[in-house]
């Protein structure tokens, strides 16, 4: 995929290409081929929560940056 075209089509120019999501628990970038999960914070629905495969497997706590709710 061309980073350039992504830059051209998005309204806000992306400085470093397509942004990779980061795990809400461990802050590690989640690559597209990894089996992470994404959902809106169950409590407030305002923040997108990402969990990497490892944190999901270990049951690591995630905390919503908007409302402070802690899961799982």
């Amino acid at each position: 995929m061309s980073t350039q075209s992504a830059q051209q089509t998005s309204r806000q120019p992306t400085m470093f290409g397509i942004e990779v999501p980061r795990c809400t628990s461990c802050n590690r970038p989640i690559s597209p081929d990894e089996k992470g999960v994404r959902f809106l914070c169950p409590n407030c629905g305002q923040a997108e929560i990402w969990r990497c495969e490892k944190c999901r497997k270990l049951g690591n706590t995630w905390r919503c940056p908007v409302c402070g709710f802690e899961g799982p």
Partner: protein
Amino acid sequence: MSREGVAPVPEGEFLVPIEKYMFAGVRLGTRVSNAYLEKRGFIFAVRHDGLRIFDLRKIDERIRIAAKMIARYDPSKVVAVSAKPYGWRPVEMFCKFTGCRPIIGRFIPGTFTNPRASYYIEADLLVVTDPKVDTQAITEAAQLGIPVVALVDTDTPFQFIDLMIPCNNKGRRSLALIYWLLAKLVLIERGLLKPGEDLPVPPEEFETRLREIE
């Protein structure tokens, strides 16, 4: 009925009167200790016979939060599963009222992962009755990155669960009440029921009848 261990709370603070929760036994865990749930403040006490007692406030709070989460998804892509018989009717009734898709009994491998299979279901959210037995559903949700909401008892594994509802997930009445509350709150979230309104049937209608599973 014993209200032992429950601090006095103002009327209306819980989703149902405390007596109703107590009668259904929602806070009765197992004798299996669970450091994971303890650390998260889900366990209220350990009874003299070793039974773990869940914190009723946490149960109540998590039911509300789970309902909010479920209500955000297209119901046709929310799958609720129960391999064990006591969860069959609760799951079916929950799905009847919310439009979610029930899978009761055996979860056929490939249900989520094999789009060519006749039994394939596209899922955006999985609701699990007992992660200890609904392992195949969780494994496939993990493979596909489908978020998982689960009823979690003290003998329940925590792997790949994104939102836990700590509760008694083995009792007939407990499962009925939990799923009844979830159904009701999902409908309230969607604006199909007014706050304070109830489902047209009582929680008892969500209970698996003993003859159904003989």
